[in-house]
């Protein structure tokens, strides 16, 4: 397993060599880097060869492997994020980074499934964040290394070209399954909800959570034709009866509260396809998995990745490992 964490001076050398780089790290470190073929986002949490850790001194580096090449970098705001799929390269894929809680993050989260050419080509990525002690005092940022632009408002997307005979495919690893409880259906899409239908009965969601004694460290889970898609709880406002989420819920989709997971690492390792780490070009895992499962110092298979405030595999995900593999063409 490669050591992805590198000092600024080492990353500088890779940039000056012309490598295409996907970077994650402390804002002060990323600001010291020269222009080049890279994008980056702020976050100090990582899963590494040494296990999960917090590091403010080094940058997490994904140096494009398998002959992949940076075919350019785009930045999007709320006015043009809907073009993110239609502008992806025909023979390639995109890696996106969005600043957490920015308007473009919210616009992408809510609108992505209805954007033109949604999912036609692979889009993987993550939501940048800050150390949890810095919430409220520092803002998540993204970096466009090609121009030196730093933004807390825009999304940055690297277009990545594939070498001949290779194909990119997205995957997710989600250890959560629905717990078999009642179906929870929301009347409208959004990052918060008051009224819901629980097995057809309309009620206040905050009250229901309290009454049912739900552990809100576990996500809501929806069945997307066999793939479990999570929505994580952010907070409950008991006074106003409102429940807030880290990703939007969508109207009409039945969600169920997830079943408890006894041992995250054991469950993760059991679900991890063999040798997946060797085929992955980029991956990311969720800060909530890191926190709720105490992943600091623990390893999750042979996966090394930034720990993020949200994951993207076509659309925004929560409490999930998202990854892109590069394999030979299948036919």
């Amino acid at each position: 397993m490669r050591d992805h964490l590198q000092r600024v001076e080492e990353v500088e050398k890779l940039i000056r060599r012309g490598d295409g780089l996907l970077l994650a790290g402390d804002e002060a470190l990323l600001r010291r880097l020269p222009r080049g073929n890279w994008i980056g986002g702020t976050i100090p949490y990582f899963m590494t060869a040494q296990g999960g850790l917090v590091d403010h001194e080094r940058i997490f580096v994904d140096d494009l492997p398998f002959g992949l090449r940076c075919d350019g970098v785009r930045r999007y705001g709320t006015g043009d994020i809907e073009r993110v799929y239609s502008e992806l390269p025909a023979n390639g894929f995109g890696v996106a980074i969005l600043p957490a809680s920015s308007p473009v993050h919210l616009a992408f989260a809510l609108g992505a499934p209805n954007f033109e050419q949604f999912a036609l080509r692979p889009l993987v990525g993550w939501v940048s964040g800050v150390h949890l002690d810095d919430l409220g005092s520092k803002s998540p940022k993204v970096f466009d290394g090609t121009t030196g632009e730093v933004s807390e408002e825009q999304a940055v997307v690297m277009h990545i070209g594939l070498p001949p005979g290779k194909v990119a495919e997205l995957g997710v690893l989600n250890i959560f399954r629905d717990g078999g409880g009642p179906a929870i259906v929301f009347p409208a899409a959004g990052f918060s909800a008051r009224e819901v239908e629980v097995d057809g009965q309309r009620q206040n969601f905050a009250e229901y959570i309290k009454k049912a004694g739900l552990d809100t460290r576990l996500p809501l889970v929806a069945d997307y034709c066999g793939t479990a898609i999570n929505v994580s709880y952010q907070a409950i406002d008991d006074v106003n009866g409102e429940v807030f989420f880290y990703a939007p819920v969508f109207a009409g989709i039945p969600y169920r509260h997830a079943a408890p997971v006894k041992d995250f690492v054991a469950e993760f390792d059991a679900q991890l396809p063999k040798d997946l780490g060797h085929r992955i070009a980029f991956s990311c895992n969720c800060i909530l998995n890191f926190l709720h499962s105490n992943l600091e110092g623990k390893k999750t298979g042979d996966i090394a990745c930034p720990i993020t405030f949200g994951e993207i595999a076509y659309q925004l995900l929560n409490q999930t490992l998202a990854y892109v593999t590069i394999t030979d063409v299948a036919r």
Partner: protein
Amino acid sequence: MQVPPATHSAWTALLTGKGKSEPSFLAARMLIVRCRMELVKGAAPDKVKKFATELRELYASNADCASVQQDLPKIFG
């Protein structure tokens, strides 16, 4: 296996959940759920046709992926 035209009934079956099997291709799973959310509001033939075309295009554009090649015989075989 070649990707059948959008007029093939299996695309509609897949969109409406009446198909022989669920797809393994992640993009298709996500697109289908988005389409089903729309179809719940009203499954007008034009809308179904539009979604079938979109789903077919998704498979055709990703025909080199292993999961797409696994899905095609399951859906159309």
